């Protein structure tokens, strides 16, 4: 009876399609988010994250439709992030079938949004996504916004602690330095966040080798998010779980049927 580590594929969605370098061999249509979600579910994903990067409102409406369809077909937890600015946005996503929402830039701009969402729906629905990078701040890590393009001029560890006090239920920690590099998760960053936060920590950014996943867990991550290594078929989810199980971590056995 041990809580299993969670392996979470992340799908970037815009205007109804999954983007960011998809290279599946066994899908009829590699960019279809529902088909990909169902495939990852079959392969043993413990949760799914959809990141809506649509710029237009019609794109957002399409994403809502994807969330609806996905929640009807895939019976594992679904987190949706991107563009959430209000309690009403959260309500809409939860009604569409999301189990959790992740917020980032909007919370930096208006931290009270965290308390508003947590008060209404509970902390367990609220994931704070922190896009952090190494910088000359007190802890050595700063927060960035707008997908890592802008510095928020705040210390990342301070922000994590403030956000937890306001009611976030989980932190998704994206390293902007390692994102997309496949050079390994930022271990020092995970350790630093683990030492100051008491909510579950999802590591993101840099997964490359199977050993990278284990290293992030050793540093204190509770869950591991990855995109390109799964989309490109470099690792199957079952391979990661098999490796971690062999290394002594508790993983959920993939569903057989």
């Amino acid at each position, binding site marked *: 009876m*041990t*809580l*299993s580590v969670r392996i979470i594929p992340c799908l970037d969605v815009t205007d109804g399609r999954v983007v960011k370098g998809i290279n599946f061999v066994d899908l009829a249509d590699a960019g279809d988010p529902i088909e990909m979600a169902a495939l990852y579910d079959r392969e043993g994903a413990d949760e799914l994250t959809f990141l809506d990067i649509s710029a237009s409102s019609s794109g957002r409406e399409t994403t809502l439709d994807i969330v609806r369809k996905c929640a009807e077909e895939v019976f594992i937890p679904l987190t949706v992030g991107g563009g959430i600015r209000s309690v009403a946005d959260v309500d809409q996503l939860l009604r569409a*079938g999301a189990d959790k929402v992740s917020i980032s830039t909007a919370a930096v701009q208006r931290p009270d949004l965290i308390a508003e969402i947590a008060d*209404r729906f*509970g902390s*367990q*629905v609220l994931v704070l996504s922190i896009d952090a990078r190494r910088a000359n701040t007190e802890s050595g890590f700063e927060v960035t916004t707008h997908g890592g393009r802008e510095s928020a001029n705040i210390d990342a560890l301070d922000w994590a602690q403030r956000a937890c006090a306001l009611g976030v239920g989980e932190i998704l920690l994206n390293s902007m330095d390692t994102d997309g590099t496949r050079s390994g998760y930022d271990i020092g960053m995970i350790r630093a966040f683990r030492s100051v936060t008491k909510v*579950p920590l999802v590591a993101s950014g840099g997964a490359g080798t199977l050993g990278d996943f284990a290293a992030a867990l050793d540093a204190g991550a509770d869950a591991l998010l990855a995109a390109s290594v799964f989309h490109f078929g470099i690792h199957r989810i079952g391979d990661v779980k098999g490796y971690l199980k062999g290394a002594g971590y508790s993983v959920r056995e993939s569903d057989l049927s």
Partner: protein
Amino acid sequence: MIAILDYGSGNLRSAQRAFATTGEEVVVTSDRKVAVEARGLVVPGVGAFQSCMAGLVAIDGDSIIRERLSLQRPTLGICVGMQILFESGTEPSRESAGPTPGVGIWSGSVSRMVAPILPHMGWNTVISNPRSTLFAGIAERSFYFVHSFAATRSVGKFQAWGEYGQKFLAAIEDGPISATQFHPEKSGTAGLRLINNWVSSL
């Protein structure tokens, strides 16, 4: 027909779809008559104990549950929908510091878990009773939990126990009324199997 009680709480759509995989007709309703007369009633729940209880009382849900119990009609509580079946919950809110009264089917209070990292979020296994109906064929499987509060004293006929920092009640079977702290509708094929086990027992 299975009724899913709509009292303003949570993600009812995926619950509806998950129960529909059994082939049963599933409706989401806050109508008293429909909820009382359904073959099975599901009481979901996402959020804080106090706000869920307030939403439940607002649609007379506490009385619906008690009436079903008195008529021996099956009811299944999920997550906070399990917690509110107890006497009280201590989940703090900004409005009040004291415990909130629950429906009171089971004695005891639902209180904050003692664990280094909360919420208890993710897939965990449970120890169920070999004679359990809900866990038939899935005794060794993992289920998806997300909660910071739990009941820890044994109630009901059969219990399933989970462990996270401490031992807690992961599921209860007590005649017509059953409950799970985890989300079967989010627990993959094992969860669908549990749902099917419950529906088959109706």
